[in-house]
Structures are given as C-alpha cells and as structure tokens.
C-alpha cells in the first residue's frame, strides 16, 4: 500500500447550474490497487468516475494520472492522457459496424499509430486474456452481453492503460453472465492493474477490493478496507445503505 499514487483526485467539484453533484472529493488510488466505490444511485459515484478521464468536465479540482495533471494542457494532451485511462461502460458501447478484432484495434491504429500487425497481435493477446479470442471475427450483435463487456475490457486494455475505470460493468448483464466479467476483473487485479470500480457487486468488493469507498450526496462519507466498511461501518449513512442492500 506504500506504492505511489497512480490516480489522484484532488478537491474535485462538479456542479450543474446551482446543483452540486460532487463536493470536495479527494481520493488516491495506488499503483496496483483496486478501489471499489459504492453508494446509492444519485450519490455522484459515476460522475466522479467520468471526471477521471474528463468525459464529464469537472467544475474545479485536479485529476492526476501517474503524476500528470489531466486538467492542464491542450486537447491533444488530453487525448494522449486518455489513452492511459481505460474505461469500461455499463452499456459496453462496442462499435456495431466493426468486427470484434476491429473494435480492439481501432484506437491502437488511429491514436497509438501502431501498425496493423502490432495492433492485431496485441488485440489477440488481450482477447485471449478475456477469453474471447474465438470471436475475433464476430460482430458485436452476435455476442451476449457478458461477451460484449469482455471485448470492451480487451479494447481498453489493448491501449496499455495505467488505470482502468469500471462504470457499473455488470449492471446491464443477466445474472448468469456477471461471473464471467468479474472473473476477468479479478484476473486483471492479480496481474497488478490499478482499478477504480463503481459497482453494486458487494460480494465481489468484499472478496477482491483493497479499499472500499462509500459515497452519498456527492461526498465521500467513509472509506476503509472491505472488512472495515462491510464489517464495522462507522457512519450512520453507511450502515443504513448496507442494511438496505444486504436486505
């Protein structure tokens, strides 16, 4: 845990008009750490995640990826830094007009300027890692949700990101498909990827997270190890939320 911070969110604020979504968020994710963000819907956890690659523009604050502040620099700098921050969406968002292989090679070719051979080789490695190499020539519409999400993970990994952001990666999946995606994420963690995950998979958080962050009303209410948060939550709001979700 003494590792240097790979992703640092400092004094992050997000307002829409007079509506404050995020207030004074500070969060550090160390290299190789898996940080899990939980909280009721509307707590701002997805917005916080989307600020980390500026898909959502922060109102103020800093986002520092591996020592570089992505709030500074030109839009070209921002695009370069976005390559280092992989993102996996709730809705997968694979490109429907491209084969699985093309989905995974597009940004490698056009943004990283890799050759076709390099990009294809890297894509096949990553598809193998998520167990999807046999579907390289398929189109997204021919895949199940779980398969699409694994391809989306491979698409992000192929760019060699330093951090991976997961925005409710299993929420749109049928229950029987969730396991395949969680397995891939667990494997990523074992390989030392730095990960920030917004999810409702409490069992998975308990099992694999290094740290759990509880958010409510646009602020971080409490953070700690899974044992602390799930076993002995301190804040009333955390207790109330956990008793609701565990039913």
């Amino acid at each position, binding site marked *: 845990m003494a590792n240097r911070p790979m992703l640092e969110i400092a004094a992050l604020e997000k307002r829409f008009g007079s509506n404050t979504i995020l207030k004074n968020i500070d969060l550090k994710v160390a290299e190789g750490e898996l940080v899990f963000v939980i909280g009721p819907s509307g707590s701002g956890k997805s917005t916080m995640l989307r600020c980390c*690659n500026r*898909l959502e523009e922060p109102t103020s604050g800093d986002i520092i990826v591996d020592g570089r502040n992505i709030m500074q620099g030109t*839009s*070209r700098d921002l*695009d*370069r830094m*976005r*390559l280092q*921050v*992989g*993102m996996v*969406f709730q*809705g997968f*968002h*694979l*490109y*429907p*007009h491209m*084969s699985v292989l093309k989905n995974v090679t*597009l*940004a490698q070719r*056009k*943004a*990283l300027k890799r050759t076709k051979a390099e990009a294809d080789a890297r894509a096949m490695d990553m598809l193998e890692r998520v167990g999807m190499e046999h579907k390289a*020539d398929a*189109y*997204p*519409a*021919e895949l199940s949700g779980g398969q699409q999400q694994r391809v*989306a993970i491979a*698409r*992000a990994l192929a*760019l060699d990101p330093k951090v991976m952001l997961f925005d409710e990666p299993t929420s749109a999946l049928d229950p029987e498909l969730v396991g395949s995606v969680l397995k891939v994420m667990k494997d990523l963690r074992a390989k030392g990827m730095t990960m920030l995950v917004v999810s409702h998979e409490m069992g998975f958080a308990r099992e694999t997270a290094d740290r759990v962050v509880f958010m409510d009303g646009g602020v971080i209410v409490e953070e700690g190890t899974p044992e602390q948060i799930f076993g002995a939550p301190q804040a009333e709001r955390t207790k109330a939320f956990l008793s609701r979700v565990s039913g």
Partner: protein
Amino acid sequence: MDRFLQTFFNPVVAAKYAPDIIAGIWVTLEIAAAVIIAGIGLGLLLACLRAYRIKVLNFFIICFADIFRALPPLVVILILYFGFPSIGIRLSGPMVLFIVLSLTLAAFAEEIFWAGFSSVEKGQWEAGIATGLGFSRTLVYIALPQAVRLAFPPLVNRVLAITKMTALGSPIGVSEILSSATTAQSFSGSATPLTMSVAAYLAIFVPMVIVARWLEGRTAWKKR
C-alpha cells in the same frame, strides 16, 4: 384505336427522333451523376461540420438547409438563368441545373445525415473519446459509418427525386430527355416523342428503384 396508335406510337416519328431522345438520356444521366456526387458530398460535409456544434456555423448550415428545402427548385433555376445575366453572371443551362439541383440535394442530404448522426448513441461517442481518438477521429471512424447506414434509405428516395428533377432543365434549354422530347413533338406534331420520353425515364428509373429496394434490405450490421 388507329388514331391512338398514330398519336402515341408512330414508328416513323419514333425512328426519326430516337437519336435525339437517346442523346437526351445521356445528358440526363450526366447531370444526374454530377448532381448526386456533388449534392451528397456537400450534404455530408455540412452534416459533419454541424456535429462540431459551432453556433455561428450551425446557424448558417441550418438556414441553408431550410431555405433550399423550402424553395421550389424551378424558381431558383429561373432566377439564375434569366435573372443573373442582368447582374453580369452568365451561366449555361446545364450549369444552372447542376448548381440548383446539387444545392437542393445537399440541403436534404444534410438533414438526413444529421438525423443519422443524432441517432448514433451518445455512448458510441464516449467510447471513442475515452480511447483517445478525440472528436474528429471518433466522428470519422465511429459516428459517420453508423450515420451513413441509417441515412441510406431516405437518401435513396431523395436521389431518385432529384434525378427526376433534371426535367426542370427543359424550360432553360438543357437538352435532357424531356426537352428533347418536347422539341421533337413540336417539329413532328406527334405525341410519339413524349411516349419515348416515358420509356426513357422508365428505362433509367425502374432499375434504380430495384437497386434501391435491394440495398435497403441490407441494413443489419453483419459479416460482409
């Protein structure tokens, strides 16, 4: 019955004016091809520019599209051909026809492509931008192919409509199909050249309609 055949299907007249009508077919096809390429190209370019959401630029693009969709092309053709020489701009008939029809098609094509862009899911843009492609490359590689696919069926209908409008060249002396036929009709005093023009239009458009129908049937994303 005999009189009907003499009027509409006179073989002597048909033989005499067939070369004129055939020449008219070529003029129609050439102008149509140029209009389709220029009109769709310009329409696509404008729709892409509009995607950047630059307020001033979009104001002009929307004005252009609305005005050219609202105006009857014949009015603009007559103004350019008969009005513009008075201010020193002299354009040939085929050039006037090409310009007006291209702009009209561009106005419709822009709206059709824009509707296509608007139906591309927001998540598609986000996926491209999150992978470092930036707005322009996301536009070209991700949004554009999907927008074009969605735009295809309405665009085909527009192309058919605009190709038919080449007949508007006839009042300004462009010797396309209709013009050749009416000229031949005046000289011969027979309606047979008009029948020939019907045949000529059908010869062009029935295959186009069939191809369009076939293309529209292939809309699902799958292996090619």
